[in-house]
């Protein structure tokens, strides 16, 4: 409760870094060492961008294709895919703007693997969905609004 309050009243990634170093983050979040905790606790797109180590604001790109339905009847299963035609894409991220934690999934794309992934996401309410592609230290994005008729979070 205290941590939530703390996060809600402070802003930006510095607060997150402080919270993490002060050990206020629950222990279970630290079991998988490769898990980018700061990124997954981000509340805004800008925080995600910072947490995955990109410099500068993301740029909209037509070479990045976001596949998502316009209307999702059931918010607990929304098929979302991202395909990047930008050479040298090393990471793809899926971000749901109005979820409690905006980052849903982060994919590393090793050489030889297509920058084309899809998965099912939960959406609490109608929201913009972003696909982010990391190329070098630059980020590109594609966005689409998905309307949800039945929310998939809370209950």
């Amino acid at each position, binding site marked *: 409760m205290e941590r939530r309050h703390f996060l809600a009243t402070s802003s930006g990634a510095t607060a997150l870094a402080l919270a993490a170093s002060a050990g206020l983050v629950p222990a*279970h*979040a630290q*079991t*998988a060492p*490769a*898990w*980018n905790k700061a*990124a*997954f606790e981000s509340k805004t797109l800008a925080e995600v961008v910072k947490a995955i180590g990109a410099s500068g604001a993301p740029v909209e790109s037509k070479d990045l294709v976001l596949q998502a339905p316009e209307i999702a009847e059931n918010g*607990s*299963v*929304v*098929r979302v*895919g991202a395909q990047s035609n930008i050479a040298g894409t090393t990471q793809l991220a899926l971000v*749901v703007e109005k*979820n*409690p*934690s905006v*980052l*849903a*999934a*982060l*994919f*590393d*794309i*090793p050489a*030889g*693997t*297509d920058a*084309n*992934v*899809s*998965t*099912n*996401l*939960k*959406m*609490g309410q109608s929201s913009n969905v972003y696909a982010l592609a990391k190329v070098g230290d630059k980020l590109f994005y594609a966005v689409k609004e998905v309307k949800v008729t039945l929310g*998939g*979070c*809370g*209950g």
Partner: protein
Amino acid sequence: MSDPMRIRAQAQGEKTTVRVLVSHEMESGQRKDAAGKTVPAWFIQNISATHNGKTVMNAQWGPAVSKNPFLQFAFKGGKAGDKVAVSWVDNKGDKRTDEAVIS
């Protein structure tokens, strides 16, 4: 213990498309139970796939990925008969690895 994953790997030309269906609760940490207590988050944090020992996919997931998650990706260089192994780790430290043969 968790149920096995369902993995389908299909080679077409030089590309191999892999579809994975994982059996996992993926509890978001937002839901409340009948007594009004928050159900703690329980979700897969890392999922990775290897082909002949080489990592072909490595993803980090948050609790916003759906229950019984689906994952699709494609890589170059797989042949029919090769094996693809997929493994995940969740935030409770549970893990599971399953293998499939490329068809």
